[in-house]
Every structure is written in structure tokens, then in C-alpha cells.
């Protein structure tokens, strides 16, 4: 069953001559547990697409259905609660709350729900994220990689069905990038979560189950990440052979 269904999403900013079409009739669906990478040039519309899926922004037309629910038919309050419980966000700039400790940042969405955080799950997550000895640190006392791991913890803590990540490795070095990606993949497998991730990195994209490309607001499905990698490698070696 598809967890996410995007139907004919369009987004236009401005009006008249100044109108910019950021997304043009984008449609696709993602089954439960799939790990999807979205690639594209800067300004191609991929962040806009992710923001629509996460209901951070509203489309000019079209529908987004998550777990069978058309999210834009909900009012702001219901949508917020839905987002809090069903969607986990990971941002390039981490966006942690500077005055909350690692542990508090991770349990923050549950605190917003006025629920008691699941202590056992928190311990488990801290161990998986390798943040146990940093639990009482503030974000300002952590490295970039550690901060992103906290952000992943926050995204995972409500056990959301869908995780949206906007260039989560954009601010990280190679070592941290590979650690974060491995962690994301492992945790999503473990907790059966669907991941949609924007990335500029070919290496990151090749780890995905499927790659979508956005170019000038139009979406193209490239299929399996590994295939994309192989195709692009073949294309490169072909060009090289021709040159020789």
C-alpha cells in the first residue's frame, strides 16, 4: 500500500508577469518503508515539493495524501497535530532549539503533545544515535554531525510513518555524511519508516531505493538509486571511450 500519494501538485509564487511556477503538475507515490532521494539543481523546486509533502506550505493546486488522509483538507490545528505525530523533519541547518539539551530536543514533539515521553525508547534511540554521553549537552556544545544526529532522533521519536529530510548532510563532512546516511537507513528499516530525502550528493542518492529528479518544476522518476549510479557511470565511461 502506498504511504504517500502526490497528485497533480502545482505551486506558483507571485502573480501576473512576476509569477514563477515552482512545481508543475507533479504526481508520484511512495510505498511504505521506501527510501526515496530527490535530486535536482538549485532552484529546481525540490525543497518546495518537500515542503508541500510536509504541509509546511500549501500548493496552488493538487493533493497530498499521507496514510490515506488528504492533508490539505485538515484545518491548521489538526494539520499541526497530524504533522507532529506522523511526519519527522530533518533540516540541513539542523534547527535544534538552542536552549534545550540533546535529550529535551529529541523528546520535544512529544512534549508539544503533552504526553509523557517513552523513557525506554529514548534510551534505545540515544544508544543507536551514539549520543548517550551527550544527552545533557546543549546543541551549541556539539559538532555538526552530532547535531544532525540529534535532529534525526527528534524526527524518529514520535515513530512517524514518514521522514522528510532536506539535504541533511549538506553541512557535514564526508565522514559524518556517511555515518548519518547509514544511521538514517538503519533506523528507518528498524522502525519501518518511509524516507524522502533531498540531496545534492550523487553518492548519497545512490544509497536510495528510488531516485526522483526535479528540474524546472517537473518531476522525473529515475528508478532505483543503484541503477541511476550505474547508468551515469556507464554514460561517463562511454563518453570517455569516445574521446579516446
Amino acid at each position: 500500500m502506498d504511504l504517500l500519494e502526490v497528485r497533480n501538485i502545482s505551486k506558483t509564487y507571485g502573480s501576473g508577469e512576476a509569477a514563477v511556477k515552482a512545481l508543475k503538475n507533479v504526481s508520484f507515490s511512495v510505498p511504505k518503508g521506501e527510501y526515496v532521494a530527490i535530486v535536482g539543481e538549485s532552484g529546481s523546486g525540490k525543497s518546495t515539493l518537500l515542503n508541500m509533502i510536509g504541509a509546511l506550505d500549501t500548493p496552488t493546486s493538487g493533493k497530498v495524501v499521507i496514510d490515506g488522509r488528504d492533508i490539505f483538507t485538515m484545518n491548521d490545528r489538526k494539520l499541526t497535530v497530524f504533522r507532529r505525530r506522523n511526519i519527522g523533519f530533518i533540516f540541513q541547518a539542523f534547527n535544534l532549539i538552542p536552549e534545550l539539551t540533546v535529550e529535551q530536543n529529541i523528546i520535544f514533539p512529544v512534549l508539544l503533545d503533552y504526553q509523557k515521553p517513552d523513557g525506554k525508547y529514548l534510551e534505545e534511540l540515544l544508544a543507536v544515535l551514539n549520543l548517550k554521553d551527550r544527552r545533557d549537552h546543549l546543541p551549541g556544545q556539539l559538532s555538526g554531525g552530532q547535531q544532525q544526529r540529534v535532529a534525526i532522533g527528534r524526527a524518529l521519536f514520535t515513530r512517524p510513518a514518514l521522514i522528510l529530510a532536506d539535504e541533511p548532510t549538506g553541512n557535514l563532512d564526508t565522514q559524518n555524511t556517511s555515518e548519518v546516511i547509514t544511521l538514517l537507513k538503519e533506523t528507518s528499516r528498524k522502525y519501518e519508516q518511509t524516507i524522502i530525502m533531498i540531496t545534492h550528493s550523487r553518492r548519497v542518492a545512490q544509497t536510495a531505493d528510488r531516485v526522483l529528479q526535479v528540474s524546472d518544476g517537473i518531476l522525473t522518476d529515475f528508478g532505483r538509486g543503484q541503477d541511476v549510479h550505474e547508468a551515469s557511470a556507464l554514460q561517463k565511461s562511454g563518453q570517455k571511450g569516445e574521446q579516446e
Partner: protein
Amino acid sequence: MKSYLDLIPISARVHRRQNRMTLLCIIFAVFMVTTIFSMAEMGIRMERVRLLEKHGSLSVTELLDSSMGQTVIPVAVLLFLLILIAGVFMISGSMNSLVVQRTRFFGMMRCIGMSKRQILHFVRLEALNWCRTAVPAGLLLGILTTWGLCAVLRFLVGEEFSDIPLFGISMTGIVSGILVGVITVLLAANAPARRASRVSPIAAVSGNAEKGKRICHAVHTGSGRIETVLGVHHAVSAKKNLFLMTGSFALSIILFLSFSVIVEWVNYVMPQSAAAPDINITADGSNVIPYDLAEDIREMQGVKEVYGRRSSLDIPASMNEVGDFSGTVDLISYDDFDLRSLKKDGSLKRGSKLSKVYGDSHFALAASDEDSTWKIGDTVQIGEEMLTIAGLLKNDPFSSDGLTGGKLTLITSGETFVRLTGEKDYSLVMIQVTGNATDADVEAIQKAAGETYSFQDRRDERTTGTYMAFVFCVYVFLTIIALVSVLNIANSISMSVSARMKQYGAMRAVGMDGRQVTKMIAAEAFTYALLGCAAGCITGLWFNKLLYDILIAGRFAYAVWRFPAASLSVILLAALLAVAVAVYAPAKRIRNMVITEVMNEL
């Protein structure tokens, strides 16, 4: 662009909305000081003309030694200092928020090569750039207000103010206005300028002011709902901002409580009694003015009210429960109109039952002060008659200093007095004339009174106009203070919110709903309000008492400082209103903005 400083007017145009409050604060400070000093100079010019007419010469010392100089000058200086401090606080507060909001801009400037010194210079000049518009606006407003006030004093009040210059320009007012504008701005710009110069170039990349700052204390999430805890933490974690915001609240309250003493002062200096007579007919202390004369005058043209008093002094009496009673009482009779006026004037102490005194009764009112021992319900035996004290006056209207000096003076109705003493005639007859009464009407009354008694025409001594003008001015100032406080507080909170916009966006993204955002901002605002009100009430009440002691208690022995509950409630309500306005606007802005927009705001 010839210099990097040419960016200042461009930046001012772009940030017009954010700068509005800072401009308003400068205008406010300049306006207040210009008006106060201009009015003071006009008063001195008027006094000079008066003294010149009277003595033919005068010296400055003579002016300063006058009772007006003695009282008004130290108070003016105190209020001037308060306004100066309030100005520095308000301007500094709003500039500080502006700098915090523009951390990224300053970071970018550092990135592209602006030195720390240049940033300092930039922020200071930017502040002075506001003076270009705000100072002339404040001066103009101050001068116009002075003209308006002078016109009111000259035409509506007249008499003692008829010499006040109408379109006078006060150089003292203008110079002090300019000085206050420039000095407050330079003083206020100092801290934000240094703060801006310390912004690291990295802030241009990270963009969020909060990130550049090291946060040392974590929030205690267990102590309440997360949004409330975060809101309170936002307020108390930034010490400097907390100090400025608390200071803004506190100063508004201090200014209000200080100015409100002046209203009370006016009440003491120019007591407005409903029974103030226009004409007095007095005998030499004995009850000899015929009752029928009063009745005849009542029927005459131009007469509004006629009421008389009788007195019987040092009557032997005994009193229950009062040990140090002197053994004699003074008995004074008041006609009904006179008695009613006591209530209207607020001369009676709480618990007094005036209604029992009217007519032929066994009740009386007693003059009292803080030290007098008699109380409501006490009984006084005069001959065969027993009188019960039904009410107490707040002071002794028959002594020069308002104190009883241990002497019991009873006020009874006319009927009771006649029953007790058998004397029907008056020792004093007072007359109020109608608004359209002519001099001929008054002459006719004088003629009817004859030459046996002393006749005093006191129409010229009416102070109602002066009183109204004074009270009006003070209330205008109080309203301005309250209004500016509301605006300043609302704006400061709005700017504090703007500085955290990106963080709020992130919180919204991970699941904080609009209501929770509002609660978070409200918690922050209420923390400022609570601390500010506490500090303001404590310091404000101290100032209130100090000014009361200087202005009132020092001159009116019977005056007792009371807790200014009404003034305090008004300004606390204004502060609450400010918080409500302050929370509503930015919370609505965040709620109505698309989350991605909030996150990209900075």
C-alpha cells in the same frame, strides 16, 4: 554611493517599519523635555512681568526664591531626569532589538570587509540619522503644545495667567530638547553599537542571532508545559534584554506614579470645594447676622446659594472613653448645602454617616487628623444633651494648618445647633452667585447686608479655571506616558519575537501549533510584565512617597500619604493592555505566515 555610510539612509528606508518605534521614542523624549522647559520659561517670563509691574525691578534670585521656584524647580529636575532615563531605556531597548534582528546583516558587512570600528560608527550614525527627523518633530510638537497650553492658560484661565506670552519661543526649551534627543540617542546607541561590532562574520552564514550566542543554561522542561517553560526561558535567558524590557515596564510605572502626585498636589494647592463662596458676610465671631437677612438675600437677583454658619466656642463638655479630652468643645453649625458639599468634596473619612446629621438630630460630625483620639460612635455630653459622632472630617478646616491640636470641633446641622444653643442668627453667611450675576447684583447684596458686617467679594479668588488647566495638563502628560508605554512595550516584544522568527518556524515545523506559539510569546511577555511591574511598583511607590513628602506633606501638615491604588491600577491595566497587544500582533503574524516563510524570515 560615495561612502559606505551612504547605506544608512537606504537602510533606514528599508527598515521604516522597524524604526518607527525608535523614532517615536526619540520624539517623545524631545517633546516632553521641550514642553516642560518651554512652559517653565513661559512661567518665569510671566512671573518676571508680574514682579516688574509690582516692584519695578527684580533679580533672578528673587524669582528662584519665590515659592513657585522653590517647589517647582527640584520637581522639574527630577521629572526631567526620569524622562531622560526613560528615553535612554526605550531607545536603547528598541535599538538593541533592531541590532539583534540584523545580526546577519552586520555579519555580512563584516564578511565583506567592514571593520569593527566601522560597524560602531555605522550604528551610531544610523542612530543620529533618526535624530534628523525625530528631533525637529519633537521640537515642533513641543512648541505647538506649549503655545496651546499658554493659550488655554491665558484665555480660558485668565487672571493670574493673563501675562503669559502667547507665541513665545523658548530657547531653553529648544536647546534642552535637542540636547536630550542627541544625548539619549548617543547614550542609547552605545550598547547596541558595541553589540553589533562584536557580531562575527560567521553570523552571515548561520543567520540566526541566537546561534552566535553561547547558551549556557538549559530549560527545565519538567516545571510546566513546554511552550510556557520556553517562553519564560526566552525572557529570562537574555539578561540584557530582560533588563531593558523590565526597565521599560518599570520606568513607565515610575513616571506614571510620579506624575500622578502632581494631581494630588494641585488638589491641595487649589482645593476645589463645592461650597466655595463668592461672597462672605462675617460678623466679629458672634452669632449676630440675622437669619432673616440670609432669607432675604436668597430671593435676590443673581444669587445661587445662601448658607450660613453659627459657632459656639469652648462649651464645657464631657466625653466617653477619651482620656485626654480637654473638657470643652467648639460647636459649629452647617446648613444642608454646606453639609452636602462635605461629601461632594470627599472631606469625610470612610464610615461617616452624613445622613444622620441632617435636621434636628442627636448626631454631629467631628474634625479630626491622624493623631486625634475620637472616633465614629463616640458620644459627647453637652449640658443635658448627648451628641453622637456620626462622621469624621479628614482634617480640621477651622485651624490654619489643618490639625486639630487635640481640640474637638463638632459640626451639627443648623436645627440641632439652634436646639442646643437657642441661637438662630449666623456668625457667617456665604453666598454663591450665578454665572451671569453682574456687579450690580453683588452691589445690591452688599447694600442689603448693610455696613454692620464685613462684606467680602471673593469672586476673583476662584481657582476653578487654573485648577482645571493644571489637572488637564497633568492628565495629558499621564496619557502620553501610558500610551507611549503601551506602544513601547508592544513594539519591544514584537521585535523580540522577530529576532527568534526562524526558531519559531522550526518549532512550528516539528509540531508546535498556533495556540502554543501564542502561549509561548504570552509567557515571555508576561514574564517581562511581571518583573517590570514588580520593580516599577516598588520604585514607583517610593518616588510617589518622596514627591508627596516634598510637594504635599512638607506644606500641609494634615496631609497623609496614602497608597495610590487608583493610579497604580490604571498603569497596571495599561501594562496588561500593552502585553495583550504585544502578544496578539506577532502571534497572529506567525500563525498567518506559511511555516516555510517563518523559517526563511531571517
